[in-house]
Each structure stands twice: as structure tokens, then as C-alpha cells.
């Protein structure tokens, strides 16, 4: 484990004291569900004064983005200090002050590929929760084959003109800006004609439309670009080299999924949850019980693998492409788990917003787990080529 030699105990004490003085009581409920999230942005309406206070205090200390450099609004923490920060936040059950695609995705991309001016312009508002970002990757014709994106950015001399359609853009209807993959060279081979560009959602010609899923209302949108003007300096990295950034972010995303996941067993045994759903007498159906046992065995082992990979990352050895394994195994297991919950619930589990909460909506929603962020089949292809070295 990497340890910080610069007065680690003093850092812990100061952080501990600051958090206990500054975290409002209402923000100490450990809330992590959608209703407890602060997404920020120009249109954000704080759910309470405490949420607003908590965000502004944490942002002022750079602690909404603890590991980002101080120059861009972060706290400049080392990996070891970040661990202390996580522990101290958990110790008071503090809510995360701010979450966003800006923090998770765009920030890391700009820190690695952006110009100094881009970092100065875009990163500080993210850390303060002033600008909310969404991600424009997939298109109707570019799902698993993401590199075949067709949304065009035409070079008009002093600006680009964007035309096309993105899909599965989470929260596009509430976002202020979008980072998108667009085609800047239609003659080049598909991986080499793509650029990574930043677009103001308030620009003329941008429209969004929410998508209704089989599970009901969703955060996903379709986003349309109709002759949208974008300044040329909004391209991140080199023109036509956007695929490198996309690849970097996809790997980063999977590693983050594997590093930040709550775990499949979530403290409560599947059996206990099932027994509760089954009502009095518990889970007596022998077939379901056997399935549940097997599911629990696998879930515990996948959770341990999550732990092992975290240990490995902390030891300074990234897991790289093997993170595709956690994405594949975790999402497939989650689907199994929800199938079991539905079977145990029987006809009681078939009503929208029934006595068991929104069990059917949750069940239906899990079907997307093995599609979004790279399908299970794409994960298996990544593993077979990059880990097993099988011929492409």
C-alpha cells in the first residue's frame, strides 16, 4: 500500500475536524439513492439549504474533486490521502456533495488531453457544480460499433457545423454542455476521422427528447443536432484523434465501475431478501432455493474479486482490460438476482408500484446492465483478444 509520508496523521486530524465542523446534519444520512444525489448545473434546484451549503463548502476546499490539481479547483490529494478522505467521509455517513459526468468522465479526459486554456475554462465550474455535462457517444447506427459514429462536424473555417443524432445521452434534457464524438473526416478510416468536441446545449439547433424504456420513464434521451455552430477551439486533443480519448474514457469508465461499485451482495444476503419477499414461512421452494444458493455463492466470489482488484490497484498495478471481466460478471449476476426476486414474488411482483416497491421496473431495468457501457459480448471479445491473446 502506498503511504503518504507527509504528516499523514495531521492530515487525518485536520480533515476529520473540518468535516465534523462543516458537514450539515441533514447531509449525514449516507443517502446515495437518486433523490439524495446533487447533480449541480445551471438549472439545478437544491432539495434543501443543507445540500447547497454542503456543496459550496466542499467545493471551496476542492473536495468535490479531491484528487484533481488545486489549480483547477481540486484538492490535490494523493492516493493515500484520498483513501483517508473516503474513510473520514464514511465515518460521519456523509453524502457525496456532488456527482456528475463532468467529474467522472470529462474531467479525467481534459486533465489528460486538454489544453491549459480548456482546463482553466471547463474544470473549475465542474468542481463547483455550476455546469452539468452529459456524454454524447452512441448513435442509432453506432452502438457496440461505436467507432462508426456518423454525426458530422463540418469545417466552416472559423467554426464547425454539427449535424446528426446521439442516443442514450443520460440527462441530456438537464445538462448544460455535452462532450461528444463527431466525425470530422469522412474520407478517413472509421477510427481516424473522429474528434472529441465540447458543445453548449444552449446552442441553436440542439434539441433533446426523453426515451421511455420497457421499465418506464428513464434518464436517457435522444439528442439532435441541426446545423449547430461550435467554435473550433472546442475540440479536445488533436482533430481526428478523438477515438484515443474515447478509448481512454471507456477503460476509465469500466475501471471506475469496478472500483466504485457497491458490490452485489450489498451487506444483505440474497437469501434474506428472498425470504422476506416470500412472506411467512420463508423460501421453501426447493428449486428457487437452490438457484438462490448458487447465485449467492457467485455473488460473494465476484465481490471478493472486486476487493482483490482494488487491492491490486492500490498496490499500483492497474487491472487494465481485466476490468471487462467485472463488468461482464457483475451485470450478468445482477440480472440473475432480479430474476430470482421476481420468481419469489410470484404474481405479487407483477404490479407497477406494488407492495414490494417497484420490483418489476427494477427487474426490467437490469436488462440494460449487460448492454450499456459495452455489452457482455463486447466484454468477452475484449477479454478473448487482449487477455487471452486469441486471434482477432
Amino acid at each position, binding site marked *: 500500500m502506498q503511504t503518504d509520508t507527509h504528516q499523514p496523521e495531521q492530515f487525518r486530524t485536520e480533515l476529520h475536524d473540518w468535516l465534523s465542523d462543516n458537514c450539515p446534519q441533514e447531509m449525514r444520512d449516507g443517502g446515495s439513492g437518486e433523490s439524495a444525489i446533487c447533480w449541480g448545473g445551471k438549472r439545478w434546484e437544491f432539495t434543501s439549504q443543507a445540500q447547497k451549503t454542503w456543496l459550496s463548502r466542499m467545493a471551496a476546499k476542492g473536495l468535490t474533486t479531491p484528487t484533481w490539481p488545486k489549480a483547477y479547483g481540486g484538492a490535490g490529494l494523493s492516493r493515500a490521502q484520498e483513501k483517508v478522505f473516503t474513510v473520514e467521509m464514511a465515518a460521519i455517513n456523509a453524502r457525496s456533495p456532488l456527482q456528475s459526468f463532468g467529474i467522472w468522465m470529462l474531467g479525467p479526459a481534459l486533465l489528460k488531453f486538454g489544453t491549459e486554456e480548456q482546463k482553466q475554462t471547463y474544470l473549475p465550474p465542474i468542481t463547483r457544480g455550476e455546469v452539468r455535462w452529459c456524454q454524447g457517444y452512441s448513435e442509432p447506427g453506432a452502438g457496440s460499433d461505436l467507432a462508426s459514429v456518423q454525426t458530422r462536424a463540418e469545417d466552416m473555417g472559423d467554426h464547425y457545423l454539427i449535424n446528426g443524432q446521439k442516443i442514450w445521452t443520460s440527462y441530456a434534457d438537464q445538462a448544460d454542455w455535452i462532450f461528444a464524438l463527431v466525425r470530422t473526416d469522412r474520407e478517413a478510416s472509421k477510427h481516424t476521422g473522429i474528434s472529441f468536441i465540447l458543445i453548449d446545449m444552449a446552442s441553436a439547433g440542439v434539441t433533446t427528447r426523453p426515451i421511455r424504456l420497457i421499465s418506464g420513464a428513464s434518464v436517457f434521451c435522444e439528442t439532435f443536432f441541426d446545423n449547430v455552430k461550435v467554435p473550433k477551439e472546442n475540440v479536445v486533443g488533436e482533430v481526428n484523434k478523438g477515438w484515443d480519448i474515447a478509448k481512454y474514457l471507456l477503460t476509465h469508465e469500466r475501471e471506475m465501475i469496478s472500483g466504485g461499485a457497491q458490490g452485489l451482495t450489498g451487506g444483505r*444476503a*440474497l437469501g434474506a431478501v428472498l425470504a422476506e419477499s416470500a412472506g411467512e414461512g420463508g423460501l421453501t421452494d426447493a428449486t428457487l*432455493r437452490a438457484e438462490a444458493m448458487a447465485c449467492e455463492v*457467485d455473488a460473494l*466470489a465476484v465481490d*471478493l*474479486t472486486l476487493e*482483490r482488484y482494488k*487491492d491490486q490497484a492500490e498496490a499500483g498495478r492497474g487491472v487494465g482490460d481485466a476490468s471487462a471481466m467485472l463488468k461482464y460478471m457483475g451485470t450478468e449476476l445482477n440480472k440473475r438476482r432480479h430474476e430470482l426476486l421476481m420468481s419469489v414474488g410470484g404474481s405479487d411482483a407483477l404490479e407497477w408500484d406494488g407492495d414490494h416497491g417497484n420490483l418489476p421496473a427494477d427487474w426490467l431495468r437490469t436488462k440494460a446492465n449487460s448492454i450499456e457501457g459495452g455489452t457482455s459480448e463486447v466484454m468477452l471479445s475484449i477479454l478473448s483478444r487482449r487477455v487471452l491473446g*486469441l486471434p482477432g
Partner: protein
Amino acid sequence: MMQNLLRTEEETMLADAARGFLDKAAPVSALRELRDTNQSYDRGLWKQMAEMGWTGVLVPEAQGGADMGHAAACVLAGELGKTLVASPFLSSAVIAATALRQVSDDRALRALAAIADGTATYALAIDESAKFNPASTAMTATKVGNGFRLDGKKTFVVDGGLADRLLVLARTGDDDALTLFDIPSDRAGISRTRQSMIDSRDAANVDFDAVKATGDDILGELDDAMSVLRPAIEAGQAALAAEMSGLATGAFGMTVGYLKERQQFGVPIGSFQALQHRAAHLWCEIEVTASAIANAGRMLDQDPDNATLAVSLAKARATSTAKLAVSEGVQMHGGIGMTDAFDIGFYMKRARVAAEWLGDYSYHAEQVARLRGF
């Protein structure tokens, strides 16, 4: 569960050294030769394992052992599993050593020293029917004067055909009154019949007909076998799971190698997505099982009284993963995988025997369910 699931530097060195040695001294061809000459294991190899400190991996240093702990024992078992090395390592160095360590009398310490220097081998005589179920033990140890008379039959006594000593579980009263005896295998009244097992290794049916035992033959306390036996069985289950995990890795390595080299339709068959995805899925299962094995080793070393969940999780996962690895292994090898001339069949047979020994998948999944509140 336990915090750090990574191998220590010491464990990594142990694994590397073991692999280097075993690839030369005990490749799969060595098992084939043992089978073809009707032998269960190579005593010369066992002597070398003793010289390298492996037989004493769980024996205290004062008794000549290396005392490296259960995680290290699992590392060794995993390397033994990769090339299907036949030896009484699990029965003697893991199960018997762990049982003897629960009892620190002079006799137990001498026995530990004999395990460490390779001069004594043990077998655990526990099963009486086709499924592992120690609680249903019917074999009796009846009190006669100052001693006992042992009567009954044990089956699937792994390493029992050649072992110098037997750990025998017998009933000394009603309900939970079970007692563990440590007796020489050549004592009067004991008859052993070698079983011709599919994995070509040593296992025996052992009959006890009015076998005399004394209080000195009891390991631990009368009517309380489990405080000695439970840790020993759990250590054995974890190491067996590690062996099976190694076995799965070995079979997988052969299979992926074959996918890259075998040509059909003018291309390597590993270029077909139908096989790629199956191979990648198998790799995922092996990787996940490795975490459960690492966790079981750590738990046995750091919190042995609460290791049951971790151990059963490891054995359950290892059983299903090894089964998948050998089934996929034979299928992906195609016709050649069915031939005796090819090694993958040895992996399949050992996986089946190991699946049953010390509790099958259902037994361990049930343990997990019970401990997780089902």
C-alpha cells in the same frame, strides 16, 4: 471479509519456485507413468517435497516445519493442481498437520515432526457412504475396560491405501458424541482394500473389525472430535479448492494453447467467436474463483474460528469452475480430447474425484446459504 487478497512477496516466490520444480519433476506425464505402472504416487518426489519444506508447510518450526500458514499451503496445492501432481500432500501436510496442531501434547508434536520430515503419511478415514457427511458417522468405538473397540467400515479414504497412519472418526455415544482416533494403519483388525479410482490416485475401503484402541490413541478429547477435526477438514477443503483452482488453470492453459494452434477451415479455431466467448467466460470464472481461494487462505490464517463461510465458498466455486474448465477443455479439443493419449482427460477425472472429496458443490453451497441466513 479479509482485507488484502493479493499474494505476499513470499507467497509469490513460493509459487514460482514450486512451478519451476514441478514442471521438471512432476509434469502430467509423470501421473500417466504412475498410472501405467500401477502406482499411486512417487515416494522419491515426496522425499524431495519434504526436503523443500512443503510437507512441513503447516508444521511449527520447533518440529522442523516451515510454518508458513494456510494461504501458503493453498499456494502449494494450487501449483500441485496445475500439473495434477499425485501425492499425500493434502492428507498429511494439510489435514493431519492441522489436526495435530490443535493438540499440543508430546505425541502430537512428534507426529508433526514426522510429517515435516516426510517419514509419516496420514489419511483421513471419515466417509461411510457415497456423500460426505461426518455427522452421520455410524462406525462405533465401544468402551471396553480401559480402552475402546473400533468396529465399522470407511470408504473413499483418500491416500488410505498407503498411509502409515489413519485419523478415524467413530461414534462414542449418541447425538454429537464423536471421537477422533489416530492409529497406525497396520494395527490388528484393520483391513484395507485399494479402490481403483478414476483419477489413478490412492483411495481405499478400510474395514475395522474389533480394532483395539486406548485413550492415548484419541486425538483431542473423548466425545469431542469436532474441535480438532473441524479446523483440519476446513484446512483440507481450502487446499483442495486451491488444487482444483490450479487444475482449472492448467486445463484452461492447455485449451487456449490448442485454440491458437489447431487449424480448421484454414484458420486457427481460436479465431471463431463462438469459441472465443466460451474461453473468455471460462477465464472469468477462473479469475473469480481465485479470489475465493485467496480469501479462504487468509481467513484460515487470520480468523480460523470464523473461516467456514470462506472455505465453503472456495470449495463450491472451485468445484463448479473445475467442472466447467474440464468440460469445456474436452469439448474445445474435439475428438483428440477424448483420447487417452491426450492429457485433458486426466484433468477431467481428477476434477470429478476432487468434486466429491470433503463435500460436493451442494454440501458447500448449503453451508454458504446457512451462514448467509437462508
